[in-house]
């Protein structure tokens, strides 16, 4: 039993760290470190920089143009990016649809779609949830009817993250209604510029436009955009769930945000308040424990072992920690977190109309309450924590 990385892994970390710090634009890192608003051009700029290095699809095997890193190397890469202040990679293209296309798509689809994903040029969205299908995803109703050499798609997807920027969307669509729900789902790739596709914003409680509804009104989709076999889409969707179990815990970002929490607490004069400091200490213990759990799962996966019972805990705990640090940051600012100034979350805001700069507090407090509100989503998405607990209990009780 050993807590240390190998010399080769250390060298890999140094290589990644050097490259990231040299190539991550300073203005983007500043926004990330201060939790200011990132726009599409910020995220796509970073995606393209990674893409040019061949690291946007950082989990891809060499056969498909990826770096072919193992589980621990991927974790080290994620950690160095997070600590440097790199934006979270928008996962829908490089992390979610690409592995499905690689595993189940045709060689023609590999050629058509993978380069654009790796380069960062093509922005992908996920078309899974529907108004009537959240936790019960298999009940999706968006219909794809085969007509000659195309599918005609009708229906609606919801909670489509950053769908307003999407070029393409991968959808779970219903191709058979005469069977068990899971057995009638197909995995279809749809060009969002197709006639009949409409994107409507959903404004979240923090006032941001992050998610959307996507309507499909007689959208014609070439049959060549079906991945794998008709009615096998649920299998492909579950394949995705078996992937990337440690990433969802987001522990690297948690470590970075813990550092930020301490800075905020100091700036607000509560770091030396015993009661507040103890809350930070409790969170620190939680983060160390989560990191240990992530490393255990990583090492087991690296060794080809199954870790279902422990891996299932990572999303629950990771999301609770994300909620806790956003909560503590807001509490550190106290009443100074209350002003809601939409513009103050842009980089470079000055606030000349107020006598004391940011009303009631420090300008760095501007995003704190918004992030606390926004992060209530983490225990809901990706399989709600209640559903996750059902799964954990099932592995224990048989």
């Amino acid at each position: 039993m050993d807590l240390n990385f190998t010399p080769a892994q250390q060298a890999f970390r140094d290589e990644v760290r050097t490259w990231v710090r040299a190539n991550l634009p300073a203005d983007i890192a500043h926004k990330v470190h201060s939790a200011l608003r990132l726009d599409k051009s910020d995220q796509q700029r970073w995606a393209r920089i990674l893409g040019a290095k061949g690291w946007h699809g950082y989990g891809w095997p060499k056969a498909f143009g990826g770096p072919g890193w193992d589980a621990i190397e991927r974790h080290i890469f994620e950690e160095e990016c997070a600590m440097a202040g790199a934006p979270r990679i928008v996962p829908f293209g490089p992390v979610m649809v690409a592995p499905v296309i690689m595993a189940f798509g045709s060689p023609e689809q590999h050629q058509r779609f993978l380069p654009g994903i790796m380069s960062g040029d093509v922005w992908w969205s996920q078309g899974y949830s529907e108004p009537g299908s959240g936790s019960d995803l298999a009940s999706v109703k968006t219909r794809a009817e085969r007509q000659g050499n195309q599918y005609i798609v009708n229906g609606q997807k919801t909670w489509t993250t950053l769908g307003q920027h999407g070029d393409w969307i991968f959808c779970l669509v219903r191709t058979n209604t005469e069977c068990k729900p899971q057995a009638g789902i197909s995995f279809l790739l749809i060009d969002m510029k197709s006639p009949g596709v409409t994107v409507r914003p959903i404004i979240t409680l923090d006032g941001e436009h992050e998610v959307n509804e996507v309507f499909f009104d007689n959208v014609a989709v070439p049959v060549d955009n079906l991945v794998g076999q008709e009615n096998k889409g649920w299998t492909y969707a579950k394949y995705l769930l078996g992937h990337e179990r440690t990433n969802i815990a987001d522990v690297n970002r948690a470590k970075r945000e813990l550092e930020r929490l301490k800075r905020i607490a100091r700036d607000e004069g509560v770091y030396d308040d015993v009661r507040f400091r103890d809350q930070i200490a409790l969170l620190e213990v939680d983060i160390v424990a989560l990191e240990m759990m992530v490393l255990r799962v990583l090492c087991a996966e690296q060794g080809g072992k199954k870790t279902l019972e422990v891996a299932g805990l990572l999303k629950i705990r990771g999301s609770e920690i994300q909620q806790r640090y956003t909560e503590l940051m807001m509490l550190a600012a106290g009443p100074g977190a209350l002003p809601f100034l939409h513009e103050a979350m842009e980089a470079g805001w000055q606030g000349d109309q107020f006598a004391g700069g940011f009303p009631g507090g420090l300008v760095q407090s501007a995003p704190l309450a918004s992030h606390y509100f926004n992060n209530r989503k983490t225990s809901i998405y990706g399989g709600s924590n209640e559903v996750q607990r059902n799964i954990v209990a099932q592995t224990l009780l048989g």
Partner: protein
Amino acid sequence: MDFDFTSEQEQLRDLVARWVQKDYGFEHRRGLIKAGGGQGIDPGTAWQALGELGLLGLAVPADFDGMDMGPVEAMVVMEELGRGLVAAPYAAAALMGAGLLRDHAPQVVQQAWLPRVADGSARIVPALQERAARHRLNVVNTQAHLGADGVWQITGTKNLVPVGGNDGVTEAYVVPARTHGAADASDGLVLFLVEASAPGVKVQSHPLQDGSRAAEVTFAAAPATLLVHDGLAALEHMADIGIAASCAEAVGAMDSLMALTVDYLNTRKQFGVVIASFQALRHRLADMKMQLELARSMSYYATLKLTAPAPERRRALAQAKVQLGQSMRFVGQQAIQLHGGIGVTDEYAAAHYFKRLTCLELTLGDTLHHLGEVSARMQDSAGVVA
């Protein structure tokens, strides 16, 4: 980076587990509680068995005829002792006492004692607790006085000393005492070795909440051997060895509680169905599993950090005890809850595991104490990989 056990470590685990399964069942332990009466469980037979298994010299270097094994081996043994609810001062003597001599005592003391620790003819346990100190290691009222004959004399009272049985084994205590200075001063704190049979030593045993034996040991000008002059650092190191051992023992105990609880949920029927079908109970079980795996993760962390430089080690062990304390309390309480009425009976094992976990939480610093330690030792960055 690796969290697997070697095949030798797995064999060591099996060695202890098989003995527990064969000779230390729950009914046997209940019998020991009854037989112990007002003194607490006599750990004599368990101690002898552990000796026959060759485990007493685990932490003693080969130079002193020991097994020369490391913290991971110690952790594996402690997990099995916890799983089996074994009441014996193994961690106190074989890990803490032996570890202190191995790491900090003068050669002449090591030579005189460690071979006997390894062969089981001597047992050295820490005598740490003083009423005024609560969980603080640096608060010591016991006094040390150098006599005209050049022999140190110790006067004071230590509580909750994990004594062995009346088994003919030579027993001695590691006793922190003050040569000078205020009760909480960091210098003037010296570690001494006092034999149980020395003049002026009185041992009054009693049970702890979990049935195990502890003693109030009073020293009245008892003759002592000086172990470590600058005692606080060595004391903290020994305490950290004990904390890591407690974490491992707790993981084994919680594993047992989980297994008992799963079995009960799948067996007990009410309203015509097994109660395992009730979602509220399923979610509670998932929460118990969460706490257990967080605890196991931090138990590994504690063991692996025992060899780190002292400030890093102290911080890591404090973090581990905070996690373990929370986990122990949650798993213990909820295991009782999920068992319904039988959970609060003496005749069923769950309550005994819960009581053992509670004793572990309150020893070597409870959760709030170590939260204070984490808080005091907080740096800008934190993490396993910082």
